């Protein structure tokens, strides 16, 4: 029952987000969003740091100390930025 409730609220939230975000933006002209390479990559890069760098580091070298996670995170982050650049990401929605 609670799963159903959360699912319904999640769907309603997603639909509301799609339809209401232009109301909040409230520009004087028609609203559109450009995904910035910098901001988008910063956010996803932070996710990589938090989620994948420890696992990847330990997979490469199981006994790696914790400070090596930062090196992995930096390498992952740079690689991700380069990949995004290769894809030419600058979309209009």
């Amino acid at each position, binding site marked *: 029952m609670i799963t159903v409730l959360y699912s319904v609220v999640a769907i309603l939230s997603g639909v509301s987000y799609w339809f209401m*975000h232009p109301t*909040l933006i409230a520009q004087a002209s028609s609203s559109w969003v450009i995904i910035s390479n910098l901001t988008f990559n910063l*956010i996803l890069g932070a996710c990589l740091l938090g989620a994948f760098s420890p696992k990847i580091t330990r997979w490469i070298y199981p006994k790696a100390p914790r400070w090596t996670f930062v090196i992995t995170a930096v390498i992952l982050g740079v690689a991700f930025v380069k990949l995004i650049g290769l894809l030419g990401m600058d979309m209009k929605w």
Partner: protein
Amino acid sequence: MQECDGRGSRGVMKLGRVPIAIWVFLLSAVYYGVLSAKEYTWVFVSGDSGDWLAASTWWMVPQPLGSPLYILLGHFLNLFPGDLVIKMTMGLSVLPSAITVALVYLIVYHLTHNRKVAAVSSLVLLGSAVFLTQSTILEEYAIATMFVAAAYYTHLKEKRYLTAILLGLGTAIHAVVVGVVLFWLLTEILANHATWKAIVRFATTYGAIVATFYSLIPLLMIMDTPRLLAGGLSIESIELYTMFITGQIVGQLSLFDTPMKLLSTSGILLMSFGLALVPVAYALRVPLPRFRLLLLGSLFFVLWYVFTNLDGNTWTFITFVSPAIAILAGIGLSRLGKNHLRAVTASALILVILNGVFLNASILTEKKPLAQDYYSALQGLPKDAIVVANAGSYSLGLFYAMSKDRNDLMPMIFPYIEVWQFSDYIGWLSREYGFDAEPKTTLDAIQWGLDGRRKVYYADYEVSTSLIREYLLLSGNAPIYEVEGIDYSLIQRSSNP
């Protein structure tokens, strides 16, 4: 886990670890700082920012009801070097909102003794759309909300005088906090949670703070400053200034619009809080302890205001109760299982990331610099030009440009003369520009300018002023120039006079 609402809490409750709250503040400050607009902008309904910038540069009476503490802080920031837009956005929106997020952590930890729940509550607030939009632009809602959230905290700590002072400071930023205070007192009285003596002491302290700051407005009316809205210090001008808003914009009640406002506001609450609304419902189960009753009172007032107001932009007032909703979500989560916590955490994280893309004031301003282009165009106009605009973002932006070394521009704002009859605006125009007689209409004043070989620039796409433009063009006057950067193809019927 038993919730404590502040009653008999002395020496019993322990705070969460302060360093965690500092981390919450720092991370929130970085997040909002990155997303914040770095230039003059009107995004997220911040068209009033021109007024705040002008009132922080000049000593002038801003729009009703004055926001005296906000303009004092603006003047203080203006003493330091650097772009005033960035200083006010960072100092009066980003940092106060980061403080508010940290306060939510402290409050929820105080109530639940659960660090994870407290952290998730902070995350819920961090990513809530309405709160985020007002935290990343130059507007007064973020800092007013900080004082309200701080008042919740001091109330829990039973610091009654400090609570009254903080609510007074919040009211000195935005007058709608008066409503929050009234409902605060009402819930205390109805639930017999406070004695009359305590209520009177609270009200006296609160009233003293509010009166002290709002005395700045009549003082500015007396001083010989550019007064573009008020009419000098008289009963008539004070009445006009204080009562003007009741019939305009955010002062208009419209019950006929309530069904649509219910729908749109529900959508905004869903997009702001997502799955966190489920534990909020759990937190509101009766019987309600004292603190939750206070939060509910604040929520009731603001939502009533938003639901019944004609102005579609009053959703910004949800900022005032966003911390309350996040706190209620935390209280609800403390009573639910781990799966609820995981679901709400995931929802909040998704919103934090989504908002970084879709509600990014920095990117929106950079890619569509409407306000900045308008400001730059005004700065580039020839000396002594007349600028015709409708009352709103364009007129307030014009005053901002004038306050920044373009005092020579003559602002012709419709309908200051013929409809709203701002006597001091008319008197100021006459004194500043040497009219033989006070103009009766906007057209009179523009014609005077044209007769004096001034260039007239049209700076708005509202139909009310476009009619002025069309009349002047048809009557064979000198060409009316258009301010660069405005999309005149968007001329549309406006419901405003």
